[in-house]
């Protein structure tokens, strides 16, 4: 077994920072963390916003700081949002995709050639033949679909 490093410990801290709307899902599983570095107690975190105008960014940034400051030896924390690389929906980890499903939100699929070809599998029954009900949903990153198999609407992440 590889020896756990300081970097691993800091990553574990970020695993405790959750999406404010989906309390099961961490920012690591969402694929929002680009880089974490530490130099003599100064921790720098680069996060990729899921959506540029996502209103949860301030909360997430605060949670990252608070959690890191609780670690021994951390004297300063800098949280920076970066656009390069851009966050894309395929950055969500396999664990993250499972947790989304558990929350009733279909994980995103790849965008097809037809821009409306974005319907994911139904998170309830797994059927693939749904339709787009509304491109927009309760948050900018989600759409609303309709499952023709279990005949109910469901939410899903937009492919971006």
């Amino acid at each position, binding site marked *: 077994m590889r020896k756990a490093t300081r970097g691993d410990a800091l990553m574990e801290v970020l695993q405790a920072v959750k999406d404010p709307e989906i309390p099961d899902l961490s920012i690591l599983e969402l694929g929002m963390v680009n880089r974490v570095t530490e130099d003599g107690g100064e921790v720098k975190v680069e996060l990729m*916003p899921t*959506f*540029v*105008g*996502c*209103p949860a960014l301030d909360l997430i940034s605060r949670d990252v700081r608070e959690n890191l400051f609780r670690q021994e030896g951390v004297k300063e924390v800098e949280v920076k949002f*970066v*656009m*390069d690389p*851009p*966050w*894309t929906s395929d950055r969500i980890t396999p664990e993250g995709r499972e947790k989304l499903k558990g929350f009733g939100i279909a994980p995103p699929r790849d965008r097809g050639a037809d*821009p*409306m070809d974005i319907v994911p599998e139904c998170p309830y029954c797994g059927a693939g033949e749904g339709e787009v*009900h*509304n*491109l*927009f*949903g*309760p*948050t*900018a990153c989600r759409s*609303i679909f309709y499952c023709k198999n279990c005949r109910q609407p469901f939410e899903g992440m*937009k492919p*971006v």
Partner: protein
Amino acid sequence: MIMETADQAAQNPGCRRALAELLYQLADDELCLGHRDSEWLGLAPDIEGDVAFSSIAQDEVGHAVFYLGLLHELGEESPDRLAFFRKAEERKNAVLLEQPNGDWARTMVRHVLYDAFDDVRTEALVNSSYRPLARGVAKIRREEHYHLLQLKPWFIRLARAGGEARKRVERAVGEVWSEAGGFFSLGDEEEEMIRSGLIACGSEELARRWEMRVKPVFDEAGLTWPGLPPAPGKDGRRGEHTEDLTELIRTMSEVVVTDSAARW
């Protein structure tokens, strides 16, 4: 010359001035339209449209905050102060975007025309010499994709529905056309913007590319193409605005003006 940071951009005063000008145009367009979009909340003709406009408004205002953040890095005031406390004559949005929404048809017409323009403009920015702008725009384009996908079908559906819907679309096109030319103006710094490589092309080329995007939508909607819109009476890029913008700023800044310590 490629500029990675605000400090590098600031080394050439001419280039810095042109960059700030461009960022104000981008920010003010998105802020005005985002505010107007938010005015539909609870009032859109269907629940789906209502839900869509809450996200679209949030996206547009979020993009404005991103551009204002870049301005702040260049040494301008904080995004909140720039958004709420600049006077109308200091703002650089196209005049069409400060006007009230009007009815649903007019809202769809203006939005589709603007989104197509924003698509053309951001496309001309993805290789901008100012890298922080180029990167943000690449990300923003992924989000704007969904705005056109949502609104263009509305535009076409209303126009093809005939009757009252079509009459209103035709009226809206007539109304907005005299101001739509204001999108393409890049203001006084156009030459420097191009010389510094901040944007890939000038206003004439932007207008030409926009026509190539929008004309097919008019064809699909069965509408007669009115030809490229004329230069506008008031050029918002030069700080020329109407009473509508003063009113919009007053509404938008109502809370912060009433209680400057309010948090939201």
